[in-house]
């Protein structure tokens, strides 16, 4: 109940360095493939060419000065801000949906903090060696070896951070030109500032702070905990199986097997007992342990050593756990080597672990909340896809000129004026015509030109005057203005606008 209190006593506690041991297994493979895929996408995407008529030949370019996002064949204009909003809402709902099902999967496998930290740890291991070597290096004085190894690790981190920052900037400007300009000192100030800032933050977050970002800074990890249900699958230690009645017991290889009872679940006193056994591995050894009331956990501590958050999963579900599954890999490796069944640490739900008879862990997706999120997800994604695929080739905004609302002409005709702004979202220059089918052709006056030609991504402004005889004006409250792209009558769109006249004025 009171876990975490001891942390609060040491508010300003310095970070205890974590040296993670590498591990092989399903979750490690999954994490590695996510990392490779994410890095491939992030670092290569700005370099994919894409030929365009009047924009840079870059497949993905967030052209801020040009006020357009170029994403392969799609051009997104500020008018499409709703797509961005929808995309972000979908991402949020997806997070809720997944978290309800399988816990903090985002934190453990997909979050960029996790991915970058993972890669930085990989660099650290490649240079400084496996966990024991790193611990030794950490403890040894600053000699030549330590300076070279630690120095080159940090140098490589800075390099990766720098390329991370530069790649980010490459999304907002033409990448080949940026790299050329950047190293010749001709790039924009914003490029240097952004790259410098991201280099610094990446280096600090993934190299120095690591799990502290998740523990102390990140709000997402915390609020995901709220979405957990008793049925949510999460990385759990099966305490019933691991501790049994008499607790964990170490297996010492070499002198046959010595089981050392460390801790009774009741946790009164730590009694140490040694028992000689003959069985080392396999089902018989397990049976022997069960006979003695010992749990399956051999207290090897590997699950703690591999944990990037530096926690002991056997203490139960805790907020520091990013649910990366590496302890599952570690435990399974040990279980395999002793011939014990796998899954002492596994993805399981709290309700199932607490049940008298445990069922095999499975996804509980039939809950109202999960189904609700799923339905919302499908609906919104469907709408987004529909909205993008069926977008109009142009945007229009018709606003009545309200100063004055109407003008009485010399023959008593009433004239209203409208400002029509047309934005061409097509890839080609397009000519538009404006008509008011409700009235005769001479009621509409577009000024000096009857058609307007607009370049892609640009807007054109037309003043439309509508002149009606008093009798017709008195009857007309609204009418349709139809904007038709030349040669594409199917894409014509009409806007209903208001018509004001003195007879209806309050």
């Amino acid at each position, binding site marked *: 109940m009171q876990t975490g209190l001891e942390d609060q*006593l040491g*508010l*300003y506690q*310095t970070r205890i360095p974590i040296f993670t041991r590498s591990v092989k297994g399903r979750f490690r493979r999954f994490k590695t493939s996510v990392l490779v895929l994410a890095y491939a996408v992030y670092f290569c995407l700005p370099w994919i060419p894409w030929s365009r008529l009047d924009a840079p030949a870059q497949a993905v370019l967030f052209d801020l000065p040009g006020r357009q996002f170029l994403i392969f064949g799609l051009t997104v204009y500020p008018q499409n801000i709703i797509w961005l909003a929808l995309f972000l809402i979908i991402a949020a709902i997806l997070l809720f949906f997944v978290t309800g099902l399988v816990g903090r999967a985002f934190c453990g496998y997909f979050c960029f903090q996790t991915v970058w930290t993972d890669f930085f740890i990989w660099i650290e291991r490649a240079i400084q060696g496996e966990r024991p070597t790193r611990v030794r290096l950490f403890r040894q004085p600053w000699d030549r070896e330590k300076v070279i190894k630690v120095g080159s690790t940090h140098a490589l981190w800075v390099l990766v951070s720098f390329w991370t920052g530069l790649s980010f900037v490459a999304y907002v400007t033409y990448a080949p030109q940026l790299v050329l300009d950047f190293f010749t000192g001709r790039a924009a100030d914003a490029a240097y500032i952004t790259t410098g800032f991201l280099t610094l933050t990446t280096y600090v977050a993934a190299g120095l702070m690591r799990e502290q970002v998740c523990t102390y800074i990140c709000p997402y990890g915390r609020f995901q905990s709220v979405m957990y249900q008793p049925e949510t699958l999460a990385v759990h230690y099966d305490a019933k199986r691991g501790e049994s009645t008499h607790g964990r017991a170490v297996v010492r290889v070499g002198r046959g097997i010595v089981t050392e009872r460390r801790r009774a679940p009741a946790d009164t006193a730590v009694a140490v007992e040694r028992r000689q056994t003959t069985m080392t591995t396999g089902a018989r050894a397990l049976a022997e342990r069960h006979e003695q009331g010992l749990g399956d956990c051999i207290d090897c501590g590997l699950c703690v050593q591999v944990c990037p958050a530096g926690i002991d999963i056997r203490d139960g579900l805790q907020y520091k756990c990013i649910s990366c599954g590496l302890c599952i890999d570690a435990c399974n490796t040990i279980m395999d080597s002793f011939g014990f069944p796998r899954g002492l640490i596994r993805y399981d739900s709290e309700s199932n672990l607490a049940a008298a008879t445990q069922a095999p862990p499975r996804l509980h997706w039939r809950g109202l909340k999960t189904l609700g999120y799923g339905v919302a997800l499908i609906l919104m994604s469907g709408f987004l896809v529909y909205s993008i695929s069926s977008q109009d080739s142009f945007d229009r905004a018709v606003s009545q*000129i*309200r*100063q*004055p609302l109407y*003008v*009485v*002409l*010399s*023959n*008593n005709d009433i*004239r209203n*004026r409208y*400002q029509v702004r047309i934005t061409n979202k097509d890839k080609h220059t397009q000519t538009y015509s404006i008509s008011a089918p409700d009235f005769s052709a001479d009621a509409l006056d577009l*000024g*000096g*030109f009857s058609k*307007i*030609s*607009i370049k892609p991504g640009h807007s*054109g*402004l*037309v*003043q439309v*005057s509508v002149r009606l005889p008093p009798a017709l004006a008195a009857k007309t409250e609204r009418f349709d203005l139809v904007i038709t792209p030349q040669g594409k009558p199917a894409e014509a769109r009409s806007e209903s606008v208001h018509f004001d006249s003195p007879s209806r004025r309050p």
Partner: protein
Amino acid sequence: MSEQKLQSQTVQTTGHAWDGDLQEYNNPLPTWWVYTFYVTVAFAIVYWTIYPSWPVGKGWIGGASDVTYVNSAGETKTHSWNTRALLVESLNEAAAAQKPYFDKVSSMSYEQIAKDPEMNGFIISAGKSLFADNCAACHQSGGQGVVGFFPNLADDDWLYGGSFDKIHETLVGGRRGFMPAFSEVLSGEQIDQLAHYVASLSGVGHDASKAATGNILFHNDTAACFYCHAVDAKGRKDVGAPNLTDNIWLWAKVPAAQGDAGKVAAIREVIGSGLNKGVMPAWAGRLSTEQIKVLTVYVHELGGGQ
């Protein structure tokens, strides 16, 4: 619990002891806080060296950064960083960005500008701000004017003509509208008869017999209205005499008047007292040639251009 907390803490003291046993706990600030503080100090020092910082005597330390700008006299000046110079600089930039459009305006004819959609867009936005700054005080923001004071520029009736050239002429030279006060030469009854006649021209309810007499007065030398308003009462644009046969009223507050008698009274008022207030200032010299040209097209496009 708090007692447990205190006991479990091993806080060091500062080492001083007063009165034998009075000691002070040493609770240093968190390291991150201290370093952040040092960083802000360093930032402040860098900031002082770049930007104006300390007052010295009557002046101040200007700092390392400066602003180079061209002032209104066309001289290039360099001054230590300040926002006024930056404003001048950005105003110059904005003017430079508009210059191609203004250049285009001066090289194109009115008809060409009106027919070019891109230039039209420029006229709508640039003309709107020029109009708001210079014209809207009298003619109102939409050019609708005020009956009894300022003519409506958005309708299709013009005192001096609504062609590009005429609007330009009005803008450059200004206008002075004048009508003599007829109460000095005509009797009250005659003015009333004239008012009924003018009302009849626009279809306002009137007394037919009075209007008939007014008709005679209008067309003979007693009142001699036809000198300016023309024989058909449709006005003369060369002298700015308005058309009396249409439904547009500028001076006589007919649209707002209640009932036929009120409307006739409004006309009578104008005939009796005359007008010497229709003054529009000349804009040549106040606005540049290009600005006047932009305004000409803008006013023309307000809806009434001919």
